[in-house]
């Protein structure tokens, strides 16, 4: 029974990683950029929700504001920092992403101090638990799982069934050819960033409900783990990111439950190293030929 309970814990943590890993994977799929600022967008989402609820405004509005805030921020970052570098070498883009990440962390520290703020999670999801025999499932867990599943289902539909999704797939396949076919590449890229950020915003709310604390560095480790999840699943692949997230969350909880807590973070990076050595394309990634 305790094993089942631990699996549920892993599933919850994993589904949050999945949502965030999706943003990494989609952006990489389309412009070959490891967007290291993605984790910090989550931190911004957490602060937006926290400040709005703190101002006494209805939590539902705070959730919407956090998600919209993340989306707008991601689009602004894309336009201001990444778009001008579209033709630059990929390494410049990567360094810019790291710079944006530091920028966001330090601005947050400047404006809101480095001290962790407690997140009013009970205003969003009340502390209620359901007991099934000796199994204990909290409302937060149920909501997290449900929201993650619905978001991923919607994303799958969006990518596979809509015109915009088709454009996204086309641009990631071959940007030049897509442009020749009359697809607005810039708009498609911005759209991809926006979708990734919406998922990050949802992830931010779910994360803060489970771990009710926000600090300027909240997104750093979370982003790193989601990045590993994306690589594990096969970077660029949407179902891969979902699987990778669940696997990383599960691995972390199992390591903690077995008592090897000092290794909890190390295991995640060991997984990254093993994947890169053994199967760089991850679970579901495609081998891509280097374009000449």
């Amino acid at each position: 029974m305790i094993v089942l309970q631990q699996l549920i814990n892993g599933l919850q943590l994993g589904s949050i990683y999945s949502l965030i890993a999706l943003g990494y994977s989609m952006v990489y799929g389309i412009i070959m950029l490891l967007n290291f600022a993605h984790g910090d967008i989550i931190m911004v989402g957490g602060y937006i929700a926290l400040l709005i609820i703190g101002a006494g405004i209805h939590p539902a509005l705070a959730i919407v504001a956090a998600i919209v805030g993340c989306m707008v921020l991601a689009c602004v970052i894309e336009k201001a920092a990444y778009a001008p570098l579209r033709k630059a070498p990929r390494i410049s883009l990567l360094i810019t992403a790291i710079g944006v990440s530091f920028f966001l962390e330090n601005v947050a520290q400047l404006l809101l101090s480095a001290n962790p703020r407690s997140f009013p999670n009970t205003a969003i999801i009340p502390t209620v638990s359901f007991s099934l025999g000796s199994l204990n499932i909290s409302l937060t867990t149920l909501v997290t799982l449900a929201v993650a599943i619905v978001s991923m289902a919607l994303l799958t539909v969006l990518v596979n069934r809509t015109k915009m999704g088709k454009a996204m797939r086309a641009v990631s396949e071959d940007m030049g050819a897509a442009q020749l076919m009359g697809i607005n590449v810039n708009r498609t890229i911005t759209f991809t960033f926006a979708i990734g950020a919406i998922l990050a915003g949802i992830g931010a709310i779910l994360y803060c409900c489970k771990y009710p604390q926000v600090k300027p560095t909240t997104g750093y480790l979370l982003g790193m783990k989601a990045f590993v999840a994306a690589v594990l699943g096969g970077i660029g692949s949407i179902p891969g990111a979902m699987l990778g997230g669940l696997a990383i969350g599960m691995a972390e909880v199992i390591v903690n439950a077995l008592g090897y807590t000092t290794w909890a973070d190390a295991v995640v990076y060991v997984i990254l190293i093993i994947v890169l050595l053994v199967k760089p394309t991850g679970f579901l990634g495609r081998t891509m030929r280097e374009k000449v």
Partner: protein
Amino acid sequence: MKKTLALVLALVLCLGLLAACSGNKGGSTAPTAAPAPGGATEAPTANTTPIKIGYLGPLTGGVAQYGIAVQNGVKLYVDQLNAAGGINGRQIDLVSYDEEGDATKAITGYNSLLDSGVVAIVGDVTTGPCTAVVAEAYPDGTPMITASATATSITYNADTNTVYTNMFRSCFIDPFQGETMARFAYDVLKAKTAAVLYDNGDTYSTGVYEYFVSKANELGLELVAVESYASGAVDFSGQLTNIAAKNPDVLFLPIYYNDVALVASQAADAGLKATMLGVDGWSSVLDAVTDTALVEGAYYCSGYSAADTGALVQKFLSDYAAAYNGATPNMFDAQGYDAAWILCDAIAKAEASGKTYGSDEYKAEIIAAMKATDSDYVTGHVSYDDHNDPQKTAAIINIVGGEEKFWGSY
């Protein structure tokens, strides 16, 4: 061009004037201060020069908040003592040195304080610099008392089996908290089973945890689950699920308040019903948790509680508020006040012994008097054991109805 020159000249003139002013002040206060006590008329032979004591601690830098609080407490006591006539008709002159929380600067500070002629030092504030300074001060035989360094290594070097006999403290030590909470769980809460979750990357947390475990074993309090986490971790669901499966009576959390907030929320999710027990790192925990119901019924120990209704604490609270614009003193203020108090009590005995002020015998007399301390202070009754560790009581704080209530001294 001429205008600029004129401006510069004017500025220089102003500066010169300012310098002259401050010079004047320094010059005029010194001579007037000496005859001020007026002791000469009462006892012609008495020495009325001030007794110099040092304060060594961080007043700027990352741990300045602790240093400033301790200094506020020390100053309050010294000012009160001076207002009441000082010791043996001599005023106390407090010399402060800011070591910025750095061990190397603390040693420089120690030497600089000795050069300025202090006979004893209140400090250092944090464990690292304090350990560095005591290694210097022990051979010198300089009487020292720290208000806040809690590691056992401050007064006892286990490697060389040396007790630093010149070093005392007004705070309790890390092992004491672990042992106290184990006794409290067993004797007062009548707990049969206990679980622990600690931070394995933090010396404070692991230290307190180890002493809790050894005391629990000694008492017969059964430890059903011992779990840990790496510093900075946010997910404790795996560990808490393991603990919840054992259904312990109490859960001991020797961790800081920010982590307590994360643990408490996930403990509720894991369906944990144990009474939570904490340590002094829990102070201000109610500000950190999202819902005070999560820590309802918890107990934690502290060096001092502002909710203590004892006469000494109440007097300290009102004196402190009067001196510092109505502020409420925290644990560091109270321990700083006590450190100065214990030291000044000892200096009074050294003065009475008739030894030459500032001599090695005089300092040895202060040390002997501190060692013999056995009375009530703001943070409880203090006496010292073989390792110069204070034998004192802890204030137990109980969280009831979303508020911190003083349960009692234990």
